[in-house]
């Protein structure tokens, strides 16, 4: 133990809490960005929006039900629809149990989809990436350990994603699951009418309310964390760091799935600018080019063929998208750009218009 006693006793347990909160806020930013993207395409893709709303509502109701089950409140009714979900408890609990079930409702949707993906990931990637290292007792040492654990997991997870074999049924299934979860992590409603109770701001308000109006429970939670940390140190078990590391992994999984969902939403948004049937071409280019590349590499094998196929597929899709956008958009574009026309007109403002007319 190299650190000062104050550092070990007071600050060290906070390192992991801060780490998890930091990742949680990054996740929140991505969720807000996804919400913006979805609202941008909502007028053209009603079914997609409803589907993503359904996933969000489903996860939220599942968390709500889980909260009532854990606190032994019981579930009297469970209802999920595309734009509304409701779970009613058999017994309305107050005090700590009621507070805990509320915490499940507001924080659960951010982590539950991640847990489902993590379980699937356990079967797909090397278990070495899941090993948790623990080396220190001070704030900085804990923070570094947390970072190392997240780095190990992230490198394994991203390595898997960059070498994913989309002709492998389980890998393809995992990618689809990742995209669906990415859409469902968002606890916000996109639609014509704003629904307050399925909105992130509503959740944040409730979290703030829970913190400010029930400070005793927060203190109890922090106290439990401290006691748990001391027990972990004294028994030389890394349980404390394990729990927070897993929470960090869940945030990383959520962030990655949100990034992938962003890419898909961007593709949808761009293809909306293409008119006519050629709109579906970019979506067809993805599987056709991937299968074609894999067939080529099957007969002429090269190292990293999965990654190269994936990257080339993304590149070909982008090229196809750019060509279609250039071809289909603004037919009145001039061959010479506007700056050159201004130069030709020696600064006269009406010169470009005159040249175009001519």
């Amino acid at each position: 133990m190299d650190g000062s006693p104050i550092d070990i006793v007071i600050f060290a347990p906070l390192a992991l809490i801060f780490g998890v909160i930091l990742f949680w806020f990054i996740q929140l930013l991505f969720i807000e960005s996804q919400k913006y993207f979805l609202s941008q395409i909502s007028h053209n893709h009603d079914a997609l929006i409803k589907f993503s709303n359904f996933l969000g509502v489903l996860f939220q109701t599942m968390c709500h039900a889980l909260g009532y089950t854990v606190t032994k409140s019981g579930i009297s009714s469970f209802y999920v629809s595309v734009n509304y979900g409701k779970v009613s408890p058999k017994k309305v609990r107050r005090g700590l149990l009621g507070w805990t079930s509320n915490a499940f409702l507001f924080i659960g949707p951010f982590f539950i989809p991640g847990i489902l993906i993590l379980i699937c990931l356990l079967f797909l990637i090397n278990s070495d990436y899941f090993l948790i290292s623990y080396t220190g007792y001070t704030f900085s040492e804990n923070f570094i350990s947390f970072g190392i654990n997240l780095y190990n997991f992230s490198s394994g997870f991203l390595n898997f994603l960059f070498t994913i074999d989309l002709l492998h049924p389980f890998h393809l299934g995992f990618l689809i699951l990742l995209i669906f979860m990415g859409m469902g992590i968002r606890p916000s409603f996109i639609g014509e009418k704003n629904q307050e109770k399925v909105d992130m701001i509503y959740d944040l308000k409730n979290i703030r309310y829970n913190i400010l109006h029930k400070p005793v429970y927060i203190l109890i939670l922090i106290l439990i964390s401290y006691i748990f940390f001391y027990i972990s140190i004294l028994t030389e078990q890394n349980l404390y760091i394990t729990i927070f590391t897993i929470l960090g992994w869940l945030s990383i999984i959520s962030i990655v799935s949100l990034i992938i969902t962003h890419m898909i939403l961007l593709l949808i948004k761009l293809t909306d600018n293409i008119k006519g049937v050629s709109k579906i071409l970019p979506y067809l280019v993805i599987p056709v080019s991937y299968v074609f590349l894999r067939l080529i590499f099957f007969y002429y094998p090269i190292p990293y063929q999965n990654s190269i196929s994936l990257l080339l597929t993304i590149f070909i899709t982008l090229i196809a998208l750019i060509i279609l956008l250039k071809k289909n958009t603004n037919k009145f574009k001039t061959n010479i750009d506007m700056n050159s026309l201004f130069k030709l007109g020696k600064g006269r403002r009406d010169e470009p218009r005159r040249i175009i007319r001519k």
Partner: protein
Amino acid sequence: MNQDELLENEQIEKILSPHPLSFMGLQSLCIFLILWGILLGWLVNFSEFKDYFLNPWLTLSVWGIILMVVGVIASLLTIRWRIFFFYLGIFIGGIVILFWLGNSNEVSIFIPFYSVSVSILGFLIVELYRRSHKYIISNQRIVFKGGVITKQERTLRYDKISDINSKQGILGQIFGFGTIIPISVSSFGLGSDNSFAAGGVQMGEKKVKFLGLFGGGKELQTPRTRSYYELHGVFPYKDIKKIVENQVQGSVITQYQQEQVSFQKEQVDIQKQMRDLLKKQSKSNDNTSEMDEKI
């Protein structure tokens, strides 16, 4: 619907067909067949488990067993044994074709291709079935037409509708379609769910041969009919529901209208009484005038 089929003063409001995704129950049978065929093809040809499937009969057995198990589970859950027989037919068909081709060593390639081919055929049949449905909503009645080979037709006047049941699944909520079952006064459109539980008990191990069978039945009335006799998976669901409900409402006398009718009846009765009184009065006048004349 031809012009000559229309009744007097009849106007067509909507002509509808089920939404392409409204027969997802049937389509999912084909989707499962494709997925399982491709998965088995991958397991046998490309996965790390391919060495276990060197015997073609083992591959065929695994394929058949999984099909049967899924068929039984799906049949039990939906109370429709046709699913099991559908998969059984596909399995037997596959074996027959394999024997006919006479090359059982190519099972690993045959199964995925056969599964995909049968599924495509299945999708086409479902699409044909879907397109055979036609619902005509007019201002006087709803006409349900359908049938691929045998043509079926049901006509339901709005004043004969006693109840409207409507349902919308998750896919329906996402894509905006749903099913509307108009239940007639004669309870056409109502089905029943039957459940039966049975269990056997053997008392003792060797000598006592007592075997008991316990059972119980339960029947529950539920709105259900064939897709030809309901507005199955119609789009846009909310608009169609509103049209049907408005038409039904329009053919039923409302409370206000009932009050008006009873008021009019009262007035007619009063007028009748007045007429009778006037008749009586005129008679009595006639009598007095006759009397006067006699006098």
